[in-house]
């Protein structure tokens, strides 16, 4: 099925190219980025236009490349966690978690129950924070400025919670190999509950302000449609895939950190349009609130760090792959250990990198005015794309 889709796609685009009257219109090359206001970082998209219609789109990445995967080979395992913070810098907790899960697989240790629950709480809060940033910037891309600051108001509260918890607001280094860094206090739990009760009515406000605004709907419905088969063929994950209706969520299909104990749903879109991807994230925030509430209610007591994780861990030789449902999709980390103090090899399957690739497929044939709407709806973070 996948091959059929790919085949159709290539033949269709070749047919279109043949049908377009060459030389009738001038081909115009427009550089979107790397300093364009709505490329969300340093992304360059080379657009070839015929009139206002895009005939070719080439995402050009690498402006933020820092060689993290190579740097990891010269760092101890604990130090590698610091590197993961810098990939998807708007939601760093799942990055920490992915590496720690991989390392724990190698070490054959399991984080204590309390640490597992804390990990779930932090990752879900980070998912809310990340989706809020998406919601705000997507509003800005489409000309609505107010949702941006409303979303940041709430995001700021989550960052305050993180600051209380681990001292950092963006690059947390909170989840450690074998557990977590620090425990939550009763005041923290009270604050977190205060935030959740405050946040639920705000979700309705975002819907009123942006989600169901007729202009917003007109700009995002039926725009940037990714059919389910195409999304699967391009390896999309996260809300981009679920917006197309494919029910794939690592939290459900390959549960980690005790996600199987929580009662939550995986929201799905219908058509795979920009609006479906957008609203999928809005619904995910509601589910994240549910998960955090459940986790706070049933927080087990116990240790924070597993026994037997030394300061300079030396996992036995071997390899491990762990993946988590990060805010942007399926974040996988593959590590190889040669028994030394540093990973022999670390490879990252970054969701933003994979999701970005479909841009060259869905931009073709659209008007240039839709580029911003489509690019924004993919919700990439260039730190993760380039690594």
């Amino acid at each position, binding site marked *: 099925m996948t091959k059929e889709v790919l085949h159709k796609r290539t033949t269709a685009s070749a047919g279109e190219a043949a049908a377009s009257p060459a030389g009738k219109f001038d081909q115009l090359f427009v550089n979107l980025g790397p300093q364009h206001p709505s490329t969300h970082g340093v992304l360059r998209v080379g657009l070839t236009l015929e009139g206002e219609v895009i005939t070719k789109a080439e995402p050009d990445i690498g402006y933020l490349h820092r060689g993290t995967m190579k740097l990891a080979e010269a760092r101890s395992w604990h130090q590698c966690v610091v590197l993961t913070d810098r990939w998807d810098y708007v939601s760093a907790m799942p990055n920490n978690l992915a590496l720690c899960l991989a390392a724990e697989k190698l070490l054959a240790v399991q984080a204590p129950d309390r640490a597992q629950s804390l990990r779930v709480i932090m990752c879900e809060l980070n998912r809310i924070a990340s989706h809020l940033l998406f919601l705000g910037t997507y509003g800005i891309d489409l000309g609505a400025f107010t949702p941006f600051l409303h979303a940041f108001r709430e995001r700021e509260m989550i960052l*305050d919670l993180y600051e209380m918890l681990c001292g950092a607001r963006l690059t947390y*280094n909170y989840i450690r190999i074998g557990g977590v860094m620090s425990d939550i206090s009763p005041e923290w739990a009270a604050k977190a509950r205060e935030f959740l009760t405050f946040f639920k009515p705000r979700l309705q406000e975002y819907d009123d302000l942006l989600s169901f*605004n007729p202009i917003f709907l007109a700009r995002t419905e039926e725009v940037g449609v990714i059919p389910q088969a195409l999304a699967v063929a391009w390896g999309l994950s996260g809300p981009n895939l679920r917006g197309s209706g494919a029910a794939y969520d690592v939290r459900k299909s390959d549960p980690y950190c005790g996600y199987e104990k929580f009662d939550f749903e995986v929201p799905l879109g219908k058509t795979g349009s920009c609006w479906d991807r957008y609203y999928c994230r809005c619904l995910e925030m509601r589910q994240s609130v549910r998960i955090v509430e459940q986790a706070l209610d049933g927080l087990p007591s116990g240790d924070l760090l597993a026994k037997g994780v030394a300061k300079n861990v030396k996992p036995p030789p071997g390899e491990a792959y762990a993946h988590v449902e990060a805010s942007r999709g399926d974040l996988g980390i593959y590590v190889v250990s040669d028994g030394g103090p540093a990973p022999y090899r670390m490879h990252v399957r970054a969701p933003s990198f994979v999701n970005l690739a479909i841009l060259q497929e869905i931009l073709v044939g659209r008007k240039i005015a839709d580029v911003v709407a489509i690019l924004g709806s993919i919700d990439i973070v260039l730190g993760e794309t380039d690594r």
Partner: protein
Amino acid sequence: MALIDHLARIGRDAWAVGKGLRVTLVSLFRPSITIQYPREKLAPEPMFRGVLLYDVERCTACGLCVKACPSACIALAPQVNEAGKRVPKAAWYAIDLGRCNWCRLCEESCPFKPKVVWHSVDYELVFFSRSEMVRCWKPGFPLLGKVHDPDKDEFRDPAEQIVIQEVPARHDEKGPRWD
């Protein structure tokens, strides 16, 4: 029929826009939540990872923080006595704040309580040159360290710094505040 549909659509859209307008109008009369930054400043939480401080008097130059640092921004040298043997005292200690990751691994690796190297809650850091990013400590230097001025070849206080706090936090009368 089509006309009724058309009118119904107009009504729906107007209602949706009206709901959005209601949200902005309600927000207009809500108190603002921002602060006037240079005039008003937020006190960070006690856990906050701010500028690194270092107590040269208590340090034994064990070098655990040097090993723990993921970006190799800490350097130190132990004192040596007349016989050429190292003594548990630091001769000098330097942190390159330009390379610091603010990851707290150095503080966690420190075996002392209270820690010898720790994050204060100071979040205002301003540098005017690359050499100012390197904080140096020698016996007798303050907790905040000094900056080496390459032109005059002397150590001076990081004076051009905006410092919101004059004394390190995370250590108050109640004792050390971490973990």
